Every structure is written in structure tokens, then in C-alpha cells.
């Protein structure tokens, strides 16, 4: 099922639409945002210089720092009377970033989220259990609006209260689950306490998961634990919230809703575009935003894109699941590692769970990496030597696949702190010494 025919239109049609919308956006920020006008004047660029999509390279980048520097509403291009909604990031490091929506921005958001729900097979017949947090975080309300747009029945459960959520899912017969992947796994852990045939109580057929980088292994685990199709949604509040891209039934890659978001992949160090298929930092220019139009926003997310046609019939380009963040890439003894790669190795191991914590530290001048992994609820063998072998085989796989020397430590179930929202998997003790 495809929500909007633009999703499967010829690429030329999509690109024509992108170009005309890009030109409008550039005109708009030049006329209305002193911050951008100043940048244009500094580099000698005029809105007329944008004659093709390739010309986007002439435009300046925007970063999270720029948003913070204009906290709270400095980059808005409309009077507050036209702003109908405010959202904000969690702001764990300093001031939060604040975003605003006009009525037309809200319509765009509903539209792209309706495409997401349709990709996951949601219709008016479905009951959507929404366990994303409602509030300033865009997850809860973004999902809510999309489900409403396709006419499904929404259960606005919000986050937390696992046992209660499971009861509601059972009693209301939820068919679509929308939560963070780590919470979905936590819910499954609790649901399994009812016995091995716990799935008979649930009617779920698909899930829409996002808001945190997720390895293939974790996705498979969630999909298996709930017996459902896994659809990954991508988005960020600076651009719109969830709904920038989503994976369909035919592929693990995520279709980007290109008529609203223009994407580029750049080398984070040089800012230059990398060839199609190569990984780099995702840069997004929203093409239809009214309240907060941004040019070439640097997401900090590492991914790659492909324009290869998809078997689902959509022609919109696809990006791979986020591999990591430019700022959570760990450099261990000169080797670049993303936590998701470590997670993938753990997911192939026997007798352990995907609850883990990566601790980077220094021993003298050398980097030291320790990984704590919780063993499964029922230990797979009660022989110390065999358990040691599990640990050694993970260490060997990390060395041969990722070229990192790590010490694995097996720890007791539920001894690593759980998070209801985003998972904090990395502790980098080297940073505090700086």
C-alpha cells in the first residue's frame, strides 16, 4: 500500500518538484532570516544562483549550534501568531533546540507520518498502540497524528508503566505497535514472564520503531520476540520529527520522503559530497517548512543512500539504517568503531542478551575498551570454562571483524541500568579527562 502517488512517481517528476521547492525555500530564508541573509552576503551567494539541484552545494550548512545560538525562536520566519505548535529536543547537553510548526507544517508532518503508517500496512481497521512519550519530544505526537490521518484507532499510551501497557495491548487488541526498539524489547522481556506461549494474548502484526540507532540483530530480536514486521522510521525534530524516512515491507532500507526533504551525504571532515552508496554524514534540507526552514542541516547521523529502484514500487531514494553518529563514533587505538557494529557482534553470540554497556577508558597512553554484557535469564551452561569460551569468542569476533581489542565482562541479568526512552550504551571516561 502506498499513501501518496508521488512516492512512486518517476524520479524526474520528484526532482522537478524538489528544485522548485528548493528555490522557494532559499528565497524565503534570504528574505526572512537575518542569519541566512548574512551568510549569503558573506559568501557572495544570491538566491538566483540556485538553478539546479546540484547548486545546493553553494549553500551554507546549518548545525545544532546555530539553532542553540538563536534559542528559542531566533530562526523562525513567521510571527508567533502563525506558529501552532512548539517541540523541543531533550537538551541533555546545554540548552534544548526548539522547533516550531505552522498549520501547513503540521499538515506536512501528518502527511509524511500517514505514509509511514501506510508502509507498515496500517488502515482504518487497525488499532495503534503508541508507546512513544507524549510531550515536547516529537515521537509521541508525531506518531499520533500519522495514525489519526490514516484513520486508525490510536491508544495514546505514552512511555513507561510496562505492565499496564501490556495489559492495554492485550485487552484492546492492538495490531500496530509504535515504540522505541529498546522499549519494545523491554516490553517483550516482561511479557515473556506469562509463559512460553505469551504471544497468543496479542494481535500485533507490525511495529514502527525509531528514535535510536539500532543494529540488525536488535531489529531481528524485536521482530521475533513480538512475531511482527519491523518498520524503521527515521526523523529528527530539527527537520520535522519522525517521518523523514521509513522502511517498507520489501527492504531494510528507508525511503526518504524526498518531495519534502532533500538529502545529501557528505564527508563530515571536509563537507564534500561522497559518492552514492558510500557512508558519510546525512545532511537534510527541508523543502516545505514554513516556521523553521533550514538549509543543509547537518544531522550528525552516519548513513549511505541508494537510488536503486525498490521492489515495493516506490521511487524515492533509500538510506540505510543509521550506522552511528559523528559524535558517538569511538576511536579505539586509532580504529573507528560505531556502537551499532559492536551490537551486531553481540547479537551473533550465544548465551548473552543485547543488554550491554561499552566503557572506553585510558590505561596509561593506551585506549582500553571494556564491554559489559548481561547473560541470558537462564544460563546456557553451568560450566565456568564454557562460559569463559562465550566471552572469548565475542572478544575474538570483535578483533577479527572490527579490529578492536576489547575486554568482555559477563554480568548478571538486569544489572545494567535500563532506560525507558533512549538507551545510553556508551560511557567514555576519556572525555572527562580533557
Amino acid at each position, binding site marked *: 500500500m502506498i499513501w501518496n502517488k508521488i512516492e512512486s512517481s518517476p524520479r524526474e517528476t520528484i526532482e522537478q518538484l524538489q528544485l522548485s521547492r528548493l528555490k522557494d525555500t532559499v528565497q524565503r530564508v534570504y528574505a526572512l532570516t537575518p542569519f541566512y541573509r548574512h551568510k549569503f552576503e558573506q559568501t557572495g551567494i544570491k538566491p538566483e544562483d540556485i538553478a539546479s539541484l546540484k547548486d545546493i552545494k553553494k549553500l551554507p550548512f546549518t548545525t545544532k549550534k546555530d539553532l542553540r545560538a538563536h534559542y528559542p525562536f531566533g530562526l523562525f520566519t513567521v510571527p508567533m501568531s502563525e506558529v501552532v505548535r512548539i517541540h523541543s529536543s531533550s537538551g541533555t547537553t546545554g540548552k534544548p533546540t526548539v522547533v516550531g510548526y505552522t498549520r501547513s507544517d503540521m499538515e506536512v508532518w501528518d502527511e509524511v507520518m500517514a505514509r509511514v503508517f501506510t508502509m507498515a500496512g496500517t488502515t482504518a481497521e487497525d488499532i495503534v498502540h503508541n508507546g512513544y512519550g507524549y510531550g515536547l519530544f516529537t515521537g509521541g505526537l508525531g506518531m499520533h497524528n500519522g495514525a489519526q490521518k490514516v484513520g486508525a484507532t490510536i491508544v495514546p499510551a505514552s512511555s513507561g508503566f510496562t505492565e499496564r501497557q501490556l495489559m492495554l495491548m492485550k485487552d484492546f487488541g492492538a495490531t500496530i505497535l509504535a515504540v522505541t526498539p529498546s522499549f519494545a524489547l523491554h516490553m517483550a522481556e516482561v511479557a515473556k514472564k506469562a509463559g512460553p506461549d505469551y504471544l497468543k494474548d496479542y494481535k500485533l502484526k507490525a511495529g514502527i520503531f525509531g528514535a535510536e540507532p539500532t543494529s540488525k540483530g536488535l531489529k531481528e530480536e524485536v521482530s521475533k520476540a513480538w512475531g511482527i514486521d519491523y518498520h524503521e522510521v527515521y526523523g529528527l525534530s530539527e527537520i520535522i520529527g519522525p517521518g523523514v524516512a521509513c522502511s517498507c515491507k520489501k527492504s531494510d532500507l528507508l525511503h526518504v520522503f524526498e518531495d519534502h526533504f532533500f538529502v545529501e551525504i557528505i564527508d563530515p571532515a571536509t563537507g564534500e559530497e561522497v559518492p552514492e552508496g558510500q557512508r558519510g554524514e546525512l545532511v537534510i534540507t527541508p523543502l516545505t517548512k514554513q516556521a523553521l526552514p533550514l538549509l543543509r542541516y547537518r544531522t550528525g547521523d552516519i548513513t549511505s543512500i541508494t537510488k536503486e529502484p525498490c521492489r515495493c514500487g516506490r521511487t524515492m531514494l533509500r538510506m540505510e539504517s543509521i550506522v552511528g553518529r559523528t559524535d558517538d563514533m569511538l576511536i579505539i587505538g586509532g580504529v573507528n568503531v560505531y556502537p551499532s557494529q559492536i551490537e551486531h557482534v553481540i547479537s551473533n553470540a550465544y548465551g548473552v542478551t543485547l543488554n550491554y554497556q561499552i566503557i572506553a577508558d585510558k590505561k596509561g597512553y593506551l585506549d582500553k575498551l571494556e564491554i559489559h554484557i548481561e547473560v541470558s535469564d*537462564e*544460563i*546456557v551452561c*553451568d*560450566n*565456568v570454562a564454557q562460559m569463559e569460551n562465550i566471552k572469548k569468542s565475542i572478544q575474538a569476533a570483535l578483533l577479527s571483524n572490527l579490529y578492536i581489542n576489547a575486554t568482555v565482562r*559477563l554480568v548478571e541479568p538486569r*544489572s545494567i541500568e535500563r532506560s525507558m526512552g533512549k538507551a545510553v550504551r556508551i560511557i567514555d571516561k576519556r572525555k572527562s579527562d580533557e
Partner: protein
Amino acid sequence: MSKIKQLSVFMENKKGELSDVMTLLSQNNVSIKSINLVDSADFGILKLIVDDEQKTKHILDDAGFSVKITDVFAVAIDDHVGSFHEVVSVLSQNDINIEYTYTVNNGQNGAFVFKVDAGDFQKATEALSKAGVQLLQKI
């Protein structure tokens, strides 16, 4: 049947860990028949034989431990030189691999506890009985 149910508990090597488990078990009136702990640098596996293994497993499960119930068998120690050798040689002659073994005190006497591959369990106990080794029904 000479199957003895043993609980195996995964434990991190950290201060107070063993004491926490013991406090939990004594508060719940679990009677411990035998304790054996084998450890490596950062974790160990505690092996317990108790009066009610299902109840004890529930208690430990609820407290968040990784627990498993394993079938083992026990033979009485006959206090003469070479008694352990006699038992082990019966197993080796029958091509049975011993995963681990330890001794426990059983009242006045002692016993050897053996863990073999589940597929070899019946073969092992039958061979021992045939060789005249006394298998204990309980510890």
C-alpha cells in the same frame, strides 16, 4: 531414579555477592544441602543442592539471577585409597565425558557429585549401578 537436581547460579565476582544470595535463601527458609563455587577472574558459577529446587529457582529468578536447574548424580564415598578412581574408570570405560565433579559432605559420609552430558546420563548411571557403585537418591 538417581537424578539429583542441582541449581547453577551465575554470579559476578563482586564484594558481598555470595552473602546476598545466602541472605536471600535463609530469609526464605531454603535448606542448603551442598554448595560448590567455581570461579574465573570476573564471574563464577555457584552450584547448590537444596531441599526444594523449584521454589529456590523462583526466589533467585525474581531477584534477577541467571539460574538453571541441572541433573547430576551422586555416589557415596567409600573411604579407601582409589575409591574415586574406581568410579571415574567405570565412566571412562563407557566413553562418558565428565563435565565437572565435586565432593560434598553428606552427614557422616561424603559423596562425589558428577555432571555429564544429558545424553549420557542414563548410560552413566546404569554402568555405575552395574559396577556395584552406590548411587545416592538424594543429598
